[in-house]
């Protein structure tokens, strides 16, 4: 491995940084240029993500160990320096992020990127934080990337301004700042007990922690877990989520769909990495919390979608159902369930993102958001010629627009509720099958009661989503046409349709993808390869001085 391939893992962090910082230097009025740069950077990012995916997925058959790419920043030896680690899970999340980013930005080009300052720069910084959080192998570095993505998300949350956004943004920022402080407490407790911040190193040292310090260690891990679960939106910590997501600008909400998955990702990664190594004093702990907390989240989300009065709020509660499902699946602690949950995560995130975009299109022209937008557009978007260009709208006042919107709405509903033929069905089906087929390692009993409860909850939550979506759809599409048909531009419709086509693609390509997620789940559940991959770099470093000029 030589040359630029070796530096590939750092690109998802550096590229958005350079692109975002570069765009700050460009005059705010040259939006076309900024948009082009932003899109270009995201497409490049998607390419890099796919390359990384290819790098870790193509394991030579001679080699049984999972492929883990380790990038040492500054070439410091491993437990001391910061490492970026690319494994299957991280690569998958990076690719998913870039897909969502691409569609969100394309959607924003119609008008949302004119609703406030520095949209494109903030967007790139958000991507930098997201990618960094997925790739980093260092706990404190994770904190830094978390803060980075949160700082960018605060800016994006307020994008477009208006009372509702500022109000929800205030709550969002306060809660996330408090959660960040919990994160710091957890990190410092873990450091105090183990004396390291490198995740792989932590995993090897945690079994050696004496029983007297065990309590402190678990306290630290639990506090850390609470910090992540706030972001993931687990039930008692999630009341901020629907209101924040539903008032955020639609392209922002669409990318925020992955934001709650960062918390889920970290919980998945850390809980299995830190507490999987066999040792005298190590037992996995906190799984019941994830299991029952996740179930409570699903129940809360299901009640929420039924109770939601407006469609954006409905989407916010759909985020909760999705988070809760994945958290519960992690809580079962079975690789098979985790594999299906990863598939579910991809499909539901795509669908929720599409739904957030769609909501704005179908709700366009009514509600108080529209006039606030008009005001901010007036304040920021000085050139009106773009509005004049908008004559090439697809079918103004023709039923075709409504037909496409309606079909997209049905598509979203199918994926979110988990009905055939789209990917939501496969995801739920895989999840249910995995729950029924693997009664847990070591237990001979049939299916645990918790699994039955989860099974019922999954089906009930699907039903609740279906009812809520049907009701919302009837209100929007079957209502007498007293209001104008929403004027929708092609550039806004394309991302929604593209995301749904991606969901359809997931259905067709379900088998290879499920195989991929199964291997991913196995590597995540047996992190020996990960640990060895990261730490072997250190041994190699001490024995063989490397001669490249990096």
């Amino acid at each position: 491995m030589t040359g630029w391939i070796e530096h590939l893992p750092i690109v998802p962090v550096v590229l958005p940084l350079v692109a975002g910082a570069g765009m700050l230097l460009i005059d705010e009025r040259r939006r076309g240029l900024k948009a082009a740069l932003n899109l270009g950077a995201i497409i490049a990012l998607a390419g890099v993500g796919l390359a990384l995916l290819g790098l870790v997925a193509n394991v030579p058959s001679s080699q049984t160990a999972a492929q883990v790419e380790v990038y040492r920043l500054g070439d410091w030896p491993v437990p001391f320096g910061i490492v970026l680690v690319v494994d299957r899970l991280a690569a998958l999340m990076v690719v998913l992020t870039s897909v969502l980013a691409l569609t969100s930005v394309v959607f924003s080009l119609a008008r949302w990127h004119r609703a406030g300052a520095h949209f494109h720069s903030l967007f790139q910084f958000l991507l930098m934080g997201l990618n960094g959080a997925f790739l980093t192998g260092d706990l404190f570095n994770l904190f830094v990337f978390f803060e980075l993505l949160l700082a960018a998300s605060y800016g994006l949350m307020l994008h477009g301004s208006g009372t509702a956004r500022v109000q929800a943004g205030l709550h969002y920022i306060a809660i996330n700042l408090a959660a960040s402080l919990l994160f710091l407490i957890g990190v410092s407790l873990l450091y105090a007990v183990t004396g390291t911040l490198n995740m792989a190193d932590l995993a090897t040292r945690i079994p050696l922690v004496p029983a007297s310090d065990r309590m402190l260690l678990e306290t630290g891990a639990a506090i850390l877990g609470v910090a992540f679960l706030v972001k993931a939106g687990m039930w008692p910590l999630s009341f901020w989520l629907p209101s924040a997501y539903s008032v955020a600008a639609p392209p922002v909400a669409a990318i925020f769909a992955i934001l709650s998955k960062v918390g889920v990702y970290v919980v998945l990664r850390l809980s299995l990495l830190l507490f999987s190594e066999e040792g005298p004093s190590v037992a996995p702990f906190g799984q019941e919390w994830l299991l029952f907390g996740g179930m409570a989240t699903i129940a809360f989300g299901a009640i929420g979608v039924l109770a939601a009065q407006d469609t954006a709020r409905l989407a916010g509660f759909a985020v909760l159902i999705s988070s809760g499902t994945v958290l519960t699946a992690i809580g079962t602690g079975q690789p098979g369930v985790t594999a299906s949950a990863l598939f579910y995560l991809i499909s539901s995130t795509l669908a929720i993102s599409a739904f957030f975009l769609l909501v704005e299109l179908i709700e366009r022209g009514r509600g108080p958001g529209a006039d606030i937008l008009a005001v901010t557009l007036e304040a920021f978007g000085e050139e009106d010629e773009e509005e004049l260009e908008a004559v090439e709208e697809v079918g103004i006042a023709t039923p075709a627009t409504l037909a496409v919107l309606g079909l997209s709405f049905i598509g979203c509903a199918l994926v979110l509720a988990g009905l055939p033929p789209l990917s939501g069905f496969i995801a739920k089906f895989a999840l249910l099958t995995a729950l029924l087929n693997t009664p847990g390692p070591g237990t001979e009993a049939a299916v645990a009661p918790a699994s039955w409860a989860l099974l019922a909850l999954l089906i009930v939550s699907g039903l609740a989503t279906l009812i809520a979506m049907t009701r919302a759809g009837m209100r929007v599409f079957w209502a007498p046409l007293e209001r104008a048909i929403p004027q929708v531009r092609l550039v806004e419709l394309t991302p929604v349709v593209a995301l749904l086509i991606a969901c359809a693609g997931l259905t067709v390509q379900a088998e290879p993808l499920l195989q991929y997620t199964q291997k991913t789940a196995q590597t995540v559940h047996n992190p020996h390869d990960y640990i060895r991959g990261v730490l072997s770099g250190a041994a190699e470093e001490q024995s063989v001085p490397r001669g490249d000029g990096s």
Partner: protein
Amino acid sequence: MEIILALGIGVLAGSGVWLLLRPRTFQVIIGLTLLSYAVNLFILAMGRLRTGAPAILAAGRSGEPAHYADPLPQALILTAIVISFATTALFLVVLLAARGLTGTDHVDGAERES
């Protein structure tokens, strides 16, 4: 010294949490600031308390770790201070914007009817 530090962290964190739960935005921001002070002190304490021990290798002294304070928590605190400073500044702006838009400094944007 331990008891003083522990008391300091406790008082800061306690008042921070109390202020965080108050209904005025300004109280919330002061609460968050106090909490971040408490957390910074806590990180310092997690690196074990030492007096008179430098964190940087001095010229002519051996690299024996026992002579030195743990430099890592100090680096972490520095990072945490920078980040919390920046986010507090941002929060302050949002606070002012919320005050301007809603005309009240209540966190919910409206006074409770009572």
